[in-house]
């Protein structure tokens, strides 16, 4: 066994002295995230700049059998970047460039730690008629990590999960080889993550960094129209929500639909707010789409079950902003710097049942709740969030919030949902319910790719 000092020195050789730390302070910070999972400290934090550096770090870790955890901004909140078994946390955010935009094939290639904010800003500046599907996570969230956890953004209704939009990968395998996935493995173009080849991207997307470190990622871009608007529909009948969503989706005119439900401020109590987004290159186009949306629910409007709320330009601004700062502000409603959500991916027909569960659990554990649901695909599923905010200075409240989350996750799984970005405990719940042959396949893949089990251990760990 090589000494800690020797490893430190090796790391310094790889990335330079300024970008390795084994200090208390860095260990403390990288031991936790903003959510509720218990902390665990790494032995080192490193900040590589190049694929080669990542390769060398991985080789070192593989040789010495040291756990290694790739980290973005840690905003998944479910502890996916907490080094459960110590080792090296690789903060990817120095690899932050936008490498290439292919306007004609509509994709971008970013590095392993490029932030959502940087990509958004880059496109706005250099390619204003193209956009990507921005999640409402804070802008420091990384593009790669978001794809790794199958995130969803502002184009989710039209184009599905952000991982569906991946158009190629460069991965450092746990054994140190660099490997290209998709069209870029045979061509200089990054237009497809798989088709027409065997789609190997599935070996990395959804695996939480347990099968390799992604150093480059191609992402599909979509047209960015000149105008964008949001329509806000309200209903007080929870059972109507799934049908309203299907009708909105049927118009094929809306690009994103989000439903929010929360008891406070009072104006939100007792009603479900459905925000649906339309875009156009002209007022006429927008007007047409607006009319389609009205028409889609006209009978509900006439029966007085659904209304549209008029919103001033000022009122719309926060709804139109990407990412939405209001989503993040939820963390301060308890004046305590914390929130976490369980976000099962589920058929939209479950909306009423999940809302009832959310209210029941919030009351049971006396925690403040909210829910923001995002439609994914043409009504194929949704991300329903059971969100609880808590005061970080109140351990009891934190414990109650955690229990509330666990209960919601368990319920969702029983109802047929699949947990999104599950924490290590939830991963176990999922694997228990999984078809054994599927689980066995996953085990084989993991063993093949990561024979020493160094990659983000604790996650997707099959007994």
């Amino acid at each position: 066994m090589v000494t800690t000092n020797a490893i430190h020195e090796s790391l310094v050789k790889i990335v330079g002295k300024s970008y390795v730390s084994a200090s208390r302070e860095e260990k403390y910070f990288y031991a936790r995230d903003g959510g509720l999972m218990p902390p665990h400290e790494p032995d080192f934090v490193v900040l590589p700049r190049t694929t080669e550096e990542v390769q060398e770090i991985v080789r070192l870790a593989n040789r010495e059998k040291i756990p290694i955890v790739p980290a973005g901004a840690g905003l998944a909140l479910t502890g996916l970047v907490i080094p459960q078994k110590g080792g090296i946390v690789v903060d990817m955010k120095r690899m932050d460039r936008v490498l290439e935009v292919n306007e004609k094939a509509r994709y971008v290639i970013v590095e392993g730690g490029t932030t959502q904010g940087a990509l958004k800003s880059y496109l706005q500046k250099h390619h204003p008629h193209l956009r990507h599907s921005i999640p409402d996570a804070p802008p420091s969230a990384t593009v790669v990590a978001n794809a790794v956890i199958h995130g969803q953004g502002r184009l989710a209704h039209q184009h599905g999960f952000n991982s569906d939009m991946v158009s190629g990968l460069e991965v450092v395998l746990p054994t140190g080889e660099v490997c290209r996935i998709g069209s870029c493995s045979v061509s200089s173009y990054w237009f497809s993550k798989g088709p027409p080849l065997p789609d190997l991207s599935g070996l990395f997307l959804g695996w939480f960094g347990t099968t390799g470190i992604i150093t480059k990622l191609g992402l599909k871009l979509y047209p960015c129209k000149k105008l964008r608007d949001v329509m806000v529909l309200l209903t007080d009948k929870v059972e109507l929500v799934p049908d309203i969503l299907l009708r909105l989706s049927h118009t094929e005119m809306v690009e994103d639909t989000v439903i929010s439900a929360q008891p406070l401020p009072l104006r939100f109590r007792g009603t479900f707010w459905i925000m649906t987004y339309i875009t156009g290159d002209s007022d006429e186009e927008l007007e047409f789409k607006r009319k389609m949306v009205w028409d889609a629910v006209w009978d509900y409007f006439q029966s007085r079950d659904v209304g549209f709320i008029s919103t001033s330009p000022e009122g719309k601004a926060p709804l139109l902003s990407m990412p939405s700062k209001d989503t993040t502000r939820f963390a301060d409603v308890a004046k305590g710097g914390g929130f976490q959500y369980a976000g099962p991916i589920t058929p939209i027909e479950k909306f009423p049942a999940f809302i009832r569960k959310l209210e029941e659990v919030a009351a049971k554990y006396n925690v403040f709740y909210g829910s923001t649901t995002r439609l994914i695909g043409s009504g194929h599923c949704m991300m329903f969030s059971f969100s609880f905010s808590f005061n970080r200075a109140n351990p009891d409240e934190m414990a109650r919030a955690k229990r509330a989350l666990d209960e919601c996750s368990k319920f969702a799984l029983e109802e047929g949902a699949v947990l999104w970005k599950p924490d290590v405990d939830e991963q176990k719940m999922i694997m228990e319910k999984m078809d054994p042959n599927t689980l066995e396949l996953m085990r084989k893949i993991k063993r093949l790719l990561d024979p020493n089990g160094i990659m983000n251990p604790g996650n997707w760990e099959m007994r």
Partner: protein
Amino acid sequence: MIGLKFDKTKCVDCKGVFCLTRCQYLQLDRDTARKEWQKIVDGEDSFVLEACTTCYACEEYCPFHNHPFYLIVERQEQKGILPAPRPIITMWINQCQPVGRFTVGKVDERMLSYCFLPHFNTLVKGKLFDDTAGAVVFGQEFFCNAVYLHYAHTSVITERLPQIVANIGKLGVRELICLHDECYGTFTSLAPAYGIEVPFKPVHYFEYLYNRLKGLGKTVKKLDVKAAYQRNCSSRLAPETDKLVDDIFSLIGVERVKREYDKENALCCAEIIRMGKGPALADDIQKRNIDDMVKAGAEYCVFNCPACWDALADKVARKGIKPVHIIDLCKLAIGEAQSLKLPELAVEV
């Protein structure tokens, strides 16, 4: 006893049934109007109750101040007619519910009422408000609740208003300068109509502005511009204040352009109508209104109500007319800057 003081006999004497014959949305001949109005008076069903856009105008049209609109609202509520979708009404009722959070500035004998409109935080500043700035009531506990006239919920008004009036009274306010017609109309028309006593003197902010401008004497410069005035629904509760617009305009050199949809024939901002009746009628109203402003050669569209501002400012600007709130217009005349402005138009923020 709190209840609408409505005098049937006045209607019997009324030749014109002006409340319904002058309605901008119903187009009724006098006989039909009389028949339908009688039904309403008698508490019977009438299609009028469903068709009403809640524009408040009939309050102004009744020559006897017999409160035809309040009666319509009463009847709508009695019959469970929903002029807007239920969730919209629920949202309003919840949003303005008093919760014991008193937003009070400096307490004074003379105070400004911001109603429930944050716009006034932006608008109220500068010399015009030198001696009142800071003496403000705002929010649920002081909210006039007149908005429920749009939503067939007089019951919410009669339930909450006495407490609201008491809340203001308890502060020792003698004069309440209402920055929103809705409050002014509530205290001068709605409350008396329901027998709710108002222990302070409501002052319309037009009057306040006019006096301030007078006081500022030579600092007031003529703006020499043509403006279309956007009348709001709640001004129908206090039509006598409309004259003050002309007074203010003449002090600051603003020409109120002659146009079809001003004064008694004014069109409202139509956003309440959009929420109640859908986009077709609302779009039509807004288009007619703005086209009319353009035709009349208006450089400015002058707003009284912040809700009209929210609905129309952006739309008039697209037609090349500068939106300005009347408070800001007065500021311009004394060399101060416009404070309430449109956010910069952006695809995203």
